[in-house]
């Protein structure tokens, strides 16, 4: 049973650049959420995608955008990178509909902005 997979695992970007992170959900799951985890902090909700639509969004600026594809995989895009965007970006998948009660994380993508 394939778990949540994310790519790339590590990347370094320059301030002002743009980045795209990718995620494939756990087999059988149709909902993808993205979280940002800064060092020493818990994950913070960015947004959730279900049926290719953004279902809910956390307190993140419009520089953060996403997409969900028909096969349920998802992308997170961050434009105009700031130093403060350096963090572990986590993709989580769940079963949608009324809302899955548990989410399963991938190993994350470590983003360093220099």
């Amino acid at each position, binding site marked *: 049973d394939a778990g949540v997979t994310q790519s790339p695992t590590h990347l370094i970007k320059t301030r002002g650049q743009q980045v795209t992170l990718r995620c494939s959900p756990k087999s059988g799951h149709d909902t993808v959420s993205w979280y940002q985890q800064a060092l020493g902090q818990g*994950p913070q*909700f960015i947004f959730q995608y279900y049926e290719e639509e953004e279902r*809910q969004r*956390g307190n993140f600026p419009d520089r953060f955008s996403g997409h969900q594809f028909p096969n349920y995989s998802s992308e997170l895009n961050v434009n105009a990178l700031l130093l403060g965007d350096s963090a572990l970006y986590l993709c989580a998948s769940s079963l949608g509909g*009324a809302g899955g009660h*548990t989410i399963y*994380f991938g*190993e994350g993508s470590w983003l360093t902005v220099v």
Partner: protein
Amino acid sequence: QKEVEQDPGPLSVPEGAIVSLNCTYSNSAFQYFMWYRQYSRKGPELLMYTYSSGNKEDGRFTAQVDKSSKYISLFIRDSQPSDSATYLCATHPTGNQFYFGTGTSLTVIP
């Protein structure tokens, strides 16, 4: 007020000790509670999931929810060095946005 508050520790215990990890939450509408374990530089791994009040046991782990005091706990019996990790509590009202504590760093000393 944050939705979930968690003591960040760090917590250091000898092997075999009983560990108690705790969180408080603010919204009485929260019904689903989870504990995740996160090893260094890895993604969080779901450890325990409980609904509403009461206890749930899985091997050496027991999750406890007290809705009257908005308090959630994770107990680890016979702690092992492999339990050394950061433990995150989490909750959500609807299944969309999950709220996480800051995590408690645990070290079990052989």
